[in-house]
């Protein structure tokens, strides 16, 4: 039966006019219209504890926000929750910005969430911890991605506040260690809402300079809130993507920000950051002199060794000369000996022949005489 037929039947049976009857959709639409147009229910902050949290595959997040007595259903749609910088958990105290509307199909009213801020004592810490875990899982802190800091930089890009002692400390370190390195300074805010974007922009600008080969981001100590801008996800990703190696010197030794973890090198203070970036010129000069001494020593050793070789050759020649003389003498002696023995032989032979002739003479004489 269509609506039209129904209205006609009602009119006949009960005598009620069509104009006095509302459909389900009409009343739902009316309620929705009432709620969405009420300024007291639009873009309001609601404080409470998260419960019944669910994350379906659609990417939307659904949960209830409750206090001691009541609860309100909340929907945190994908388009809004993609920038959430911490993980939602049941039991977490939060401050929610959103607007009340209805889900007409179920006649439920719900808070459409635009933004969630964690609360409680550890709110900042929680946000920090969760972002740290997220970026760590993505590998943004891995050593393999850390760029090498050049031992002798051509030009240092310095991002810091123009006011305060930090810039003075850095320049003092630089002047005392290596006074002839160029510094390109970009003065930025180092705390507050705008600081993060200014630092991001400064990193992008310095990356356009071919001469800049080291960047220092420096800030003095402060409260956790003062340093919060260095726990920003976009800043962390900008530091990670920088082609120029970045050294952070943020706060004091005990302060650790997300920027420190993602930086190519973290220094405990701004002055130490400057020391890491700027080599000590005297050390390098000493190195040159050390190599020069080494060169001189090697050269002297080389010459000395060649002299030794020469001396050995000279000794060898001398000994060969002596040996030659000796051999010659022996040779002469042996020759002389040879000559004498031949002479004796000759005498003996001659004497033998004479004796033989005499014997033959006496034999012939006896034969003739007989």
């Amino acid at each position, binding site marked *: 039966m269509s609506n039209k037929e129904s209205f006609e039947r009602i009119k006949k049976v009960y005598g009620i006019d069509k104009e006095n009857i509302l459909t389900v959709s009409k009343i739902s639409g009316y309620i929705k219209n009432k709620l969405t147009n009420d300024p007291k229910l639009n873009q309001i902050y609601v404080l409470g504890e998260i419960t019944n949290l669910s994350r379906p595959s659609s990417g939307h997040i659904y949960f209830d926000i409750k206090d001691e007595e009541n609860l309100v259903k909340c929907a945190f749609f994908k388009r809004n929750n993609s920038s959430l910088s911490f993980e939602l958990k049941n039991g977490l105290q939060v401050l929610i910005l959103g607007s009340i509307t209805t889900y007409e199909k179920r006649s439920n009213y719900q808070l459409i969430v635009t933004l969630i801020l964690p609360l409680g004592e550890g709110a900042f810490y929680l946000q920090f911890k969760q972002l740290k875990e997220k970026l760590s899982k993505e590998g943004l802190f891995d050593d393999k991605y850390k760029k090498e800091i050049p031992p002798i930089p051509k030009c240092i890009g310095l991002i810091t506040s123009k006011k305060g002692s930090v810039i003075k400390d850095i320049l003092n370190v630089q002047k005392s260690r290596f006074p*002839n390195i160029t510094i390109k*300074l*970009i003065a930025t805010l180092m705390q507050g809402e705008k600081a993060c974007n200014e630092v991001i922009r400064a990193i992008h*600008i310095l990356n356009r300079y071919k001469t800049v080969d080291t960047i220092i981001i420096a800030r003095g100590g402060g409260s956790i809130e003062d340093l919060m801008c260095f726990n920003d996800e976009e800043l962390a990703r900008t530091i990670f993507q920088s082609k120029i190696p970045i050294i952070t010197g943020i706060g004091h030794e005990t302060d650790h920000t997300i920027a420190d973890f993602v930086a190519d090198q973290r220094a405990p203070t701004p002055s130490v950051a400057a020391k890491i970036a700027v080599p000590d010129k005297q050390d*390098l000069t000493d190195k040159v002199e050390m*190599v020069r001494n080494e060169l001189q020593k090697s*050269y002297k050793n080389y010459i000395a060794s060649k002299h030794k070789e020469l001396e050995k050759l000279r000794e060898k020649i001398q000994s060969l000369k002596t040996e030659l003389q000796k051999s010659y003498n022996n040779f002469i002696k042996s020759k002389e000996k040879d000559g004498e023995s031949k002479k004796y032989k000759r005498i003996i032979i001659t004497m033998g022949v004479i004796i033989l002739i005499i014997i033959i003479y006496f034999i012939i004489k006896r034969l003739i005489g007989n």
Partner: protein
Amino acid sequence: MQEKFDKNIEKVKQIISDFDHFKIEESKANSKFCEGNKVLDDCLNILNEKELIIEEISVVDGKIVSKN
């Protein structure tokens, strides 16, 4: 700057190694020694080649401007 410095130091180290292993002839030794010293002088020149410059950069109307 750093690359040139390191290259020079390496060059001299090679000369030193040649001396240590007597790979060169004596006649070349003198000129090698002079060359090594010259390269080290270049290293010192690299360390002194320019004065300190502090340039402040800012962005005005979307353009990068140097304040020096």
